[in-house]
C-alpha cells in the first residue's frame, strides 16, 4: 500500500512511476488488471501529495486517445487522466479527444469520478478551459462521489470555473457543480466565495427555486455536520487537513448557508405579502362593484397588472398603479 505520507519518496520516483504507465496499459489490454490498479493507486497517492505524473507522458496519452485506438485503451487514458499534469503538458490538443472519449465511454462510478476530477482540473486552467466542449459539463449531473483527496474539486472552486459553469445558463449543471465542490475535504478558493454567494442570490432566488435551495441547504448541512465531527475524524481520511482548514471551511460553508436561508426568508416574505395586497385590490374592486367571483388571480409586477380569470372564464385585466401606499385601479 502506497501512503501519501511518503511524499518526498513519491515525488523523487514520479518519473519512474510514470514510465510504468505504458506497461500497465499493455497489461490491462491483455486482461491482467493488477498492474493498472497498482499504478492508479500509486498515482492517487501522488495526487494526495499534490503531485502529478511526469509531463513526458503526453505523447503516450495522445497516442492512446487517438480515434483509431480501441475503447479499452481509451478507458485506461480516462482512468489515468486525473493524474496527468494538464498544466505543464502541451495539453490543448489532448482535451478534445479526451472529452470525446469521456462522452462516448460507458459510465460507471469510477469513470465518472475520473472524468469530473479531470474536467474541473482542466477548467481551472484559464488557457485550457476554452478547449472544453460545452457538452462535457453535463456529466456533472451524474453526481459522482469524489474521493477525499481530489485535485479537481480543490482547483475547481476558483472564480474562473464558477463563471464558466454559470455561463452555460443551466441551473441543473450549476447546482450539480456546487454540490460537487461543497465538501468537508476542501475549502473554497477565497475569491470564489464572494462570487458564489452572488451566484446563489442571483441564480437561486425567488419562487420556484425552493427545490434547488433545499438540495443545496441539505448538502451544506451535511458538510457542516461532518466538520463538526472534528479534525481527528477527518484526518483519518485526509491527513493533510489542519485546524485552519476546518475553521476556514466552517466560515465559508456557514456563510453560504446563511445566504441560502436569507433567500428563503425573503421568498416567504414576498409570498406572505402578496395575499394582503390582493386582499386590498379585491376589497376595492368589490367596493367599486366590479368584483365577481374569480377562478384564478394573478398579479404581475412588471408590467404592473392584475389578471383574474372569472367563473365564466372571462378575463379581467387591470393596470395597477401603486404609489405612496395608494392603490388606484383602472377597470
Amino acid at each position, binding site marked *: 500500500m502506497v501512503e501519501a505520507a511518503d511524499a518526498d519518496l513519491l515525488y*523523487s*520516483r514520479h*518519473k*519512474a512511476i*510514470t*514510465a*510504468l*504507465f*505504458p*506497461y500497465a496499459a*499493455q497489461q490491462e489490454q491483455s486482461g491482467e488488471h493488477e498492474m493498472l490498479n497498482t499504478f492508479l493507486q500509486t498515482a492517487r497517492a501522488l495526487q494526495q501529495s499534490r503531485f502529478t505524473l*511526469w509531463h*513526458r*507522458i503526453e*505523447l*503516450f496519452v495522445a*497516442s492512446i486517445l487517438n480515434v483509431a485506438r480501441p475503447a479499452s485503451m481509451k478507458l485506461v487514458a480516462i482512468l489515468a487522466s486525473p493524474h496527468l499534469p494538464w498544466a505543464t503538458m502541451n495539453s490543448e490538443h489532448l482535451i478534445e479527444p479526451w472529452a470525446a472519449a469521456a462522452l462516448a465511454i460507458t459510465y460507471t462510478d469510477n469513470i465518472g469520478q475520473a472524468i469530473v476530477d479531470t474536467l474541473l482540473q482542466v477548467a481551472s486552467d484559464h488557457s485550457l478551459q476554452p478547449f472544453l466542449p460545452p457538452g462535457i459539463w453535463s456529466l456533472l449531473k451524474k453526481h459522482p462521489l469524489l474521493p477525499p483527496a481530489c485535485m479537481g474539486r480543490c482547483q475547481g472552486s476558483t472564480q474562473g470555473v464558477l463563471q464558466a459553469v454559470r455561463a452555460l445558463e443551466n441551473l441543473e449543471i450549476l447546482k450539480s457543480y456546487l454540490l460537487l465542490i461543497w465538501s468537508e475535504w476542501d475549502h473554497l478558493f477565497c475569491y470564489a466565495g464572494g462570487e458564489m454567494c452572488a451566484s446563489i442570490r442571483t441564480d437561486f432566488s425567488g419562487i420556484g427555486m425552493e427545490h434547488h435551495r433545499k438540495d443545496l441547504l441539505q448538502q451544506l448541512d451535511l458538510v457542516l455536520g461532518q466538520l463538526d465531527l472534528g479534525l481527528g475524524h477527518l484526518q483519518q481520511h485526509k491527513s493533510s487537513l489542519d485546524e485552519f482548514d476546518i475553521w476556514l471551511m466552517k466560515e465559508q460553508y456557514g456563510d453560504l448557508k446563511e445566504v441560502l436561508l436569507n433567500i428563503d426568508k425573503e421568498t416567504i416574505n414576498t409570498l406572505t405579502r402578496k395575499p394582503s395586497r390582493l386582499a386590498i385590490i379585491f376589497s376595492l374592486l368589490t367596493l367599486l362593484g366590479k368584483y365577481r367571483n374569480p377562478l384564478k388571480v394573478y398579479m404581475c409586477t412588471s408590467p404592473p397588472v392584475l389578471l383574474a380569470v372569472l367563473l365564466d372564464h372571462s378575463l379581467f385585466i387591470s393596470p395597477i398603479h401603486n404609489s405612496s401606499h395608494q392603490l388606484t385601479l383602472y377597470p
Partner: protein
Amino acid sequence: MSRIHLQLKQISGNPNIMESHFKSIAIWSLWAIQSEISNKPQQFGNQSCPTHHEWLELWDQIHIRNPTLAIIYLDVLLGCITVKNNQVTEGPKMGQAMRAASLCLLRALPGVDPTSEVVNDIHKKYIGFFPPYANFNGLSSYYLISAIHALFIGRQNRYFFGWMDYKPCPQEHAFFANTLVQVAHKARDCWGKVPRWTLCFALHSLAFDPPPSTLLIVDCLSIIAIDMGCDILSPGTVTPDERYVYA
C-alpha cells in the same frame, strides 16, 4: 575516412591494448566503414543488421575490462565528427562508424572505475572537444551521441533530450536498452539517481505500438526498477525471461 584509418592506426600502434580487443573494434569499425563505402549494408551473419544475439555476441568479444579502450572508442567517435559554433556534423560516410563507436563507448562507460585516472582523462578529452551546449541535430546517431553527451555533461548543465522520433531497428533498440540498464545501474551507484533521459527512454520504448520484444520490456522495467531502488540480479544468475528484483 582518412580519420578513421588514422584512429585505427593509433589503436594498432598502442602496445597496451590486447590484440583481441583491437581486432574486435577494428572488425566492427571496418564493417561499418565498408557498409558506408559500398552504400549497402555488409552482410553480418545472415542479416544486414546484426541480430540482438549478434550484437551481444559481438559485445562479448569487445567487452573489455581494460578501461583504456573507452578512450579509444571516444577517439574513434571524435574522429568521425567536427564541431563548429556548437553545431556538430558528421564526416562524409562516417555514419556507421560513428554509430559503432558510440554504442561501444556507451557500453564501456559504465564499466570504467569512477575513481580511476582514466575517468579524468576521458572526461577532459570529451569536454575539450564538445561544448556543453553542443547541437547534435542532423546526426545519424543523434540519440546515441546525445546519451553520451548527457552522461558526460548532463548533470552539471541540466542537459536533457527526448526520444520522440527514436525508432531504431529492433536489434539496435534492444542492444541500446540493455546498455542503458548498465548505465542506470552505474548512475545510481555514483549519483544515487538514474538519469531521467534513461527513464524517458524506458517510457518511450514501452509505449511502442505494437509493444516491443519481451527482452526489451525486461530491460526497460529494469531501468525503472533501478530508479525505484530495487536491486536486480546480475545476468547469469537468472534466465533472461525471469524478472527477479529485490526492493
